[in-house]
């Protein structure tokens, strides 16, 4: 990513001067980072509109309802933000390892294990002050999720097992463990037709941000995203990670402990997803059951890639995707489109954004050419 920007800058410096070339020289690369994804998004929306038109619906209606359902009213905004909250955290589970050049797609598994650990902690501490229980839940969720992804990191570091595949397999294994415990050892006998653990208790729930319906998970997500950004771009540790991500051999030559980097980053990544799981329990469900496997981990992968693995960019992208899923219901109800329209649109956006990677440093006018 950074090399692309540098390349663009260098090329911009080498061309004939135009009236505003100074501005473009300085900001050309940054403008690209906004312009290209925006163009990709518009292109994707146009293709999706065409697709819907072939299905016999008016694309203008489509765009209107998408806007209306996602951002058109205060309610729509809250709907969007609520859906964005877990996505920020699960996206970090993919974005952080990506700094090291690793592709982790098992955030869903870490979310489930994080939720399970947080619930176990809360149930073990019934009777303690709510704030104590909540802190214990955060710690348990972070450790549970963190260790789950660390497992993929360790397998890669010590056994050479591909982390993309192992993290995905661990999703299915994590889900089996959750179901096994929820229907067995951790089952609340009173949870009759929906096997669940006992409830963590209303007092221990973390509630919503005052004046809104949006739970505190959004704030957790924002803090984690900003902290990750600072960690990656403004600390020595982050610098080392990016060096290792660029070239493992070079990192080894300059004496970076790549193993330690991999394990630490994987732990942090899993911790974010585990935190998302803890929040689903503490802010939404109040207990652990199979409902937690709602696919947030998988949508998070999409968010991370669309944000080009940049922790700050994850925030607007998560809101965008939260908006798309918030408007999905309206598309079903008003336009009679199938629920899968949301998946199709996400897929098209993803394809366009990836294909647009080829454009960086190649847009004529940003280089100062006329």
């Amino acid at each position, binding site marked *: 990513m950074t090399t692309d920007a540098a390349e663009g800058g260098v090329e911009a410096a080498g061309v004939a001067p135009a009236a505003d070339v100074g501005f473009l020289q300085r900001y050309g690369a940054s403008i690209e980072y906004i312009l290209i994804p925006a163009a990709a998004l518009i292109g994707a929306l146009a293709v999706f509109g065409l697709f819907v038109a072939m299905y016999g619906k008016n694309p203008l209606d489509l765009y209107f309802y998408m806007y209306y359902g996602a951002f058109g009213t205060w309610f729509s905004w809250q709907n969007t933000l609520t859906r964005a909250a877990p996505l920020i955290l699960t996206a970090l589970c993919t974005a952080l390892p990506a700094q090291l050049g690793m592709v982790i797609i098992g955030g869903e598994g870490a979310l489930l294990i994080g939720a399970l650990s947080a619930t176990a902690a809360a149930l073990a501490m019934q009777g303690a002050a709510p704030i104590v229980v909540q802190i214990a839940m955060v710690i348990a969720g972070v450790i549970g999720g963190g260790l789950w992804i660390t497992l993929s990191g360790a397998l890669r570091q010590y056994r050479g097992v591909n982390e993309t595949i192992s993290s*995905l397999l661990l999703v299915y294994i994590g889900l089996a463990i959750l179901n096994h415990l929820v229907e067995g050892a951790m089952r609340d006998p009173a949870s009759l037709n929906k096997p669940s653990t006992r409830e963590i208790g209303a007092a221990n729930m973390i509630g919503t941000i005052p004046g809104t319906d949006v739970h505190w998970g959004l704030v957790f997500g924002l803090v984690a995203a900003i902290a990750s950004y600072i960690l990656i771009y403004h600390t020595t540790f982050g610098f080392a990670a990016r060096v290792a991500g660029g070239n493992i051999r070079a990192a080894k030559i300059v004496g970076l402990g790549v193993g330690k980097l991999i394990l630490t980053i994987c732990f942090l990544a899993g911790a974010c997803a585990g935190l998302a799981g803890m929040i689903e329990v503490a802010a939404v469900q109040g207990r652990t059951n199979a409902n937690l496997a709602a696919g947030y981990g998988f949508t998070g992968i999409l968010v991370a890639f669309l944000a080009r693995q940049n922790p700050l960019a994850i925030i607007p992208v998560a809101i965008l995707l939260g908006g798309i899923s918030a408007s999905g219901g309206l598309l079903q109800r008003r336009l009679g489109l199938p629920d899968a329209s949301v998946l199709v649109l996400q897929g098209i956006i993803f394809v366009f954004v990836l294909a647009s990677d080829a454009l960086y440093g190649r847009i004529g006018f940003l280089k100062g050419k006329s």
Partner: protein
Amino acid sequence: MADPSIGLWTVPLAVFGGAIRVSTPFLFVSLGECITERSGRINLGLEGTLVMGAMSAYGISYLSGSPWLGVLAAGITGALLGALHAGICSLPRVNDVAVGIALMLFGTGLAFFLGKPLIEPTAPRLPAIDFGWWSDIPQVRAALRINVLFLIGVAIAPLLFWAFKTTRWGLLIRTAGESSDAARAMGHSVLLIRLRATMVGGFLAGIGGSFLSLFYPGSWNEGLSSGQGITAVALVIFARWDPLLCLWASLAFGGAAALGPALQSVGVTSGYHLFNAAPYILTLAIMIITCSPKRTLTGAPAELSITR
């Protein structure tokens, strides 16, 4: 009729039958992926291709009345998705793993979108060939009612093994996978080779999908693939990019998937969730045992992004 029950023999028989019934999609996807990866590119999108293949096969079979046309349609759909993958990947600086994930989402979404009206109708299915005529035991006969797609898959595996080794075509694919510079030096377009390899891979994965909807379980619905496509991609890695090992790995997988229900049917009931996760645990275990941090995987194409 004698007592039709065969008691505990159900388990090995179910695992054997399951190996045949459940393995076919794995087999086709892994063989397809094997070709693609040998050319130096990974296509994680085959999960989407599989689902899209299942949907289009069912749809065409329903509309035309011919399941074989459905199989062909699934293959063509798969090849088109493969071309899309290869097309995007041929742009500079585009990551093939990410494109795969995008196409997984796109393929699945499109299949669900277009497949809505197909959930209810019943489409003509592929016929089975009865290989169990020699047996008096109905269970054995049932296990040996084999679809010809399985046999085609079994035949493709050695064929591919041979083709990679001895044909010019196989050599080209391997060259593109080992060193794109070498392929270029020989005067071939690496992108074109990979385009073809990805399209053939998609074609096979699409056919794997048609088996799901047209033979076993034999109807279209949205829960049809529980990750078979992506698991098959994992399978290629532990099969060391060897088509013959892909065949054995697929069979082992199918058998593992049949284990959970079969054990319950003879009374082993505790921990069925864990037994159901057996295929995933098995894959992970085999990967842990067979991988090594010290050397690059034997047989791994050098150009492949995930093994570098």
